[in-house]
């Protein structure tokens, strides 16, 4: 079975010969230091370097997909956040927020071209990477993480209590913008869209806020992608115990959890596919035998797709990632 067929089938809850092993990209990027050094950097700003890095991750780490970009900062940058693109050791990150009032941001950036700038680079890379054999995953930030990357998270989180309607208007604006971007990714040739929302954890928002300020927005973007027949993976960081139930309502094709989440318990509740959740700390600095046993454990606990549990450290050795991917590909799991 080819990699693309296998992943798409799993996302439709179909039968496959063995689980796929992927690293979707975005905040879960396997563009580690060893890869970044090989291609000489620029993988965040040049389509050519991005394509080369995505191919090298597939070849050298063994993940059965192409996943771009390798961060979630392009979306925020286009709405006025300041970004440091990082280097071979440190990933891109937001260095300053857009400090205009939310209403001014919504007005000034109402017609941002989602095909320009670094988002345009990502779209060009997806276009170049598309093929019949290996699935291409386009990565987009969840609305809560995008909103709290554009403006100061403290402002947004307080506003959820203080001015809930105003917060909702801004989140709606951000979500519409992300939907436009994700649909462009589909047009460019993405087979799957992966949404990561590291700021929308159960621990940060709590179940009530998650239900009110996260669920309906995911439903909207996922519905828009399903209309194009594109499956969606949703990754939520941290301990998701308190929000596992509402995650069924968003109708993602697979949800991905951090290593702290007990997959056996999640499996009992989650009706869709499950992805995860090999500890990224272990992948960074653990023994290979331990990486294999934890991967085996995730598969036996019920993940449909094996993947790192969260963002990988750039210092993660490729050989550790290969230990994980080779094990899944062998297919015996005893």
């Amino acid at each position, binding site marked *: 079975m080819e990699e693309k067929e296998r992943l798409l089938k799993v996302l439709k809850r179909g039968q496959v010969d063995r689980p796929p092993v992927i690293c979707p990209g975005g905040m879960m990027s396997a563009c580690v230091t060893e890869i970044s050094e090989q291609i000489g950097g620029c993988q965040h700003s040049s389509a050519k370097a991005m394509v080369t890095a995505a191919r090298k991750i597939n070849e050298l780490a063994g993940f059965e997909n192409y996943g771009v970009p390798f961060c979630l900062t392009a979306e925020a940058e286009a709405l006025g956040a300041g970004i*440091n693109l*990082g280097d071979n050791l*440190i*990933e891109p*990150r*937001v*260095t300053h927020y857009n400090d205009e009032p939310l209403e001014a941001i919504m007005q000034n950036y109402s017609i941002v071209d989602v095909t320009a700038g670094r988002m345009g680079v990502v779209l060009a890379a997806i276009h170049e990477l598309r093929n019949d054999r290996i699935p291409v995953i386009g990565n987009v930030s969840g609305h809560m993480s995008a909103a709290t990357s554009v403006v100061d*998270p*403290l402002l947004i*989180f*307080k506003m*959820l*209590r*203080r001015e809930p309607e105003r917060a909702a208007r801004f989140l709606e604006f951000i979500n519409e913008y992300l939907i436009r971007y994700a649909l462009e990714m589909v047009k460019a040739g993405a087979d799957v869209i992966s949404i990561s929302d*590291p*700021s929308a*954890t159960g*621990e*940060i*928002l*709590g179940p009530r*806020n998650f239900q009110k300020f996260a669920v309906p927005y995911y439903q909207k973007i996922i519905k828009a992608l399903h209309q194009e027949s594109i499956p969606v993976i949703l990754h939520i*960081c*941290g301990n998701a115990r*308190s929000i596992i139930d509402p995650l069924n309502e968003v109708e993602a094709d697979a949800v991905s959890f951090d290593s702290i989440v007990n997959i056996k318990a999640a499996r009992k509740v989650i009706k869709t596919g499950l992805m995860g959740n090999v500890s*990224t*700390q272990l992948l*960074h600095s653990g023994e290979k035998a331990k990486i294999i046993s934890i991967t085996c454990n995730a598969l036996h606990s019920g993940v449909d797709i094996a993947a790192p549990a*969260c*963002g*990988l*450290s*750039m*210092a993660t050795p490729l050989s550790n990632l290969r230990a994980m991917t080779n094990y899944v590909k062998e297919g015996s799991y005893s």
Partner: protein
Amino acid sequence: MSDIKSKLLLDLADSVVNMDEEQTVELAKNYIAHNLDPYEGINQGLALGMDRAGTLYEEEEYFIPELLMCSDAMYAGLDVLRPHLKQDNLEDNHKIVIGVVQGDTHDIGKNLVKIMLETTGFEVIDLGRDVPPLDFVNTAKEIKADIIALSTLMTTTMEGMQEVIRLLEGENLQNQIKVMIGGGPISKGFADKIGAYYAGDASKAAVLAQSLVKEV
């Protein structure tokens, strides 16, 4: 303790827990108007409220938005009470350098820890987000800090925490300046491994910091 004082202290704590900034300011003004000790107003009123908010967070009754609103109310009250503190209340405060390690710009957790440390009487120097390891060590040396507190939300930046400890060891300062760490991906196991103290959440960080400075 006079009835009016204990009532005002309780009301101050309640208004922090209830996230009511305006009421906290009014109560703090009223408290000062009664000529009551501002130091107790902070420690047994505002800080107690923040402590109760922290407990509600642990009990999953409050989450980050609620805690942030409580801390706004607490700080608003602090702004009223602090100018009335006598000088000797401000002396020999222990100092802590705090920040989010380089590569990470998430600072909610760090801000909560800072709030709890400040309410328990520490002088906290906040280096902000995305801070290079050397900056922590240099600032701690410069101001003669007792503790460096490091936070990260991302698994990707934990390496930087170890680097801070290596730098301290390089200058043989690891016994004078203790390092405490915390944040989403951090475990006690990781802290033990790199030779740091582990704080599970913001209120535990404040308790830990107090016990660390007592050891010195």
